[in-house]
């Protein structure tokens, strides 16, 4: 799906991270991706996106949240990976929650939402 969709202008350099995180649709998938990533990859992704959260959301703010164009939707999904990656980089200093089984899946349901 990411083949035909490009990131919005100004965010093209995030393409390598969009290839990994931009195809994930749910928090469960992002949690698993984090667990299967190396710290090196997580750090590179974090360094590229975390300082740009404001720029990313300033751009996304121009669109209705329920009708993001494909490029913006890809950018948003790419940014969402940071919700998991920040836990690895800023909190645990490792991809997985210490002592947890691996891989660890947890079902998440946003009640009657979207």
């Amino acid at each position: 799906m990411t083949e035909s969709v490009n990131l919005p202008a100004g965010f093209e350099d995030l393409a390598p991270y969009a290839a990994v995180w931009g195809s994930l649709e749910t928090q469960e998938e992002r949690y698993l991706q984090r667990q299967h990533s190396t710290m090196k990859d997580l750090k590179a992704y974090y360094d590229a996106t975390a300082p740009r959260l404001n720029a990313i959301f300033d751009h996304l703010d121009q669109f209705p949240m329920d009708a993001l164009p494909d490029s913006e939707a890809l950018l948003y999904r790419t940014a969402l990976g940071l919700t998991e990656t920040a836990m690895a980089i800023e909190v645990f200093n490792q991809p997985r929650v210490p002592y947890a089984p691996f891989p660890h899946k947890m079902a998440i349901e946003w009640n009657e939402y979207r």
Partner: protein
Amino acid sequence: MANLSEHMTKARDMGLDNGRVPVEYYTSADYFRREQDMIFRRAWLMVGRVDEVPEPGDYIVRDLPTLKASVVIARGKDGKVRAFHNACSHRGVALVCQERGNAMTFRCPYHAWVYRIDGSLSAIPAEQDFPHVDKATSGLAPIHLDSWAGFIFLNFAQEPEATLPQFLAGLDQMLEGAPFEQFPFCIRVTDEIDCNWKNLVNAFNEGYHVAILHSKTLRPAVVPKENPHLHYLDVKHFGPHSAGTVQRNFDYNPQAPALTWVYAQMLPTSAPDIAAIEEGRAGFYEHPGINRLKIPNFGTETITIFPNISIQPLANGYLFYQFWPINEGRMRTEVRIYSRHAPRTLREEYAMASTLAATRDVVVEDMAMSRLQQIGFESGGKTHQQFGQNEPLLRMFTRDYEAYLQGKGMGQP
């Protein structure tokens, strides 16, 4: 707070024994069977919120692994919420197959017996072949239901030994008017894990582990210098239920850019809304039953409802945890994060996803430890575990657990 240590309730202050508790309670299949019969078939069990079925015809289906029960909870035309076993009166099929919906009738997919939303049987195809079936008494099997503060409780006994208010034993009065209904939006996280359910109940009933197990997640935000073992303060008990006050670090100032960014977008459920507290408009924080000591760095009141619920009201929402045994060595954890509203912007949605990940990771730490604990228990080298003076609620839970297994507990002394 002149002297905080005065409010650090110790087991001896509550006259609690149970400093040594048999590991067998946590590993034996026989104890699990007794728990099913003597606790989960007798106590009132929380299964949802009335606002999950707001309109007549709204229904939800819940499965309760402990009792292998499939339950339909439905609001009738008359506005009344009822619960039934999801089992057809003909030959038993669990006929309601959607997890939620709105309907005025339920039609069994096997032979099309039809039930009304109030559970009564309305039609039998080829009815002449069932002359022995009295339609008036062959509806879906009802389950006793009552609600408190918008929480739906079920009781699986033929006749409950106590009403829900009797069961709640004053906890309901302490929390009278607490604004749970202001936080209708919920994210639910569930997981099954290999440990006894009581390991998790215990983990939520003491703060002793917070600075250690949660050293990277919770400790910086909640463990204050003056209470390094995060002793619960002002422990209140109501029959087998309890509440204890927990502090947090208001000077916590995360230096981590991505998490800090989240804090700036939206008030995450678990962050203190200092401005709101000062203006006295901060949801639960104004309630007289919560933070009775009026400690300035109030974090949460951790509320335990026997046998398997922990509720933590926060500045801008509340956390709800429930622990269901599947057998003696396996359990299901359900975490619900309640907030004021669904995200209205992408920034809020991102912030909520981030808060969800952070909250989940803390519970994952508790579950990971509970699993290691089970491995240790089952290894068989120890016959007992030890509960300290600083773990009064673990001793209290054990006291009431033993009482229930002996047929007491429900209002009886």
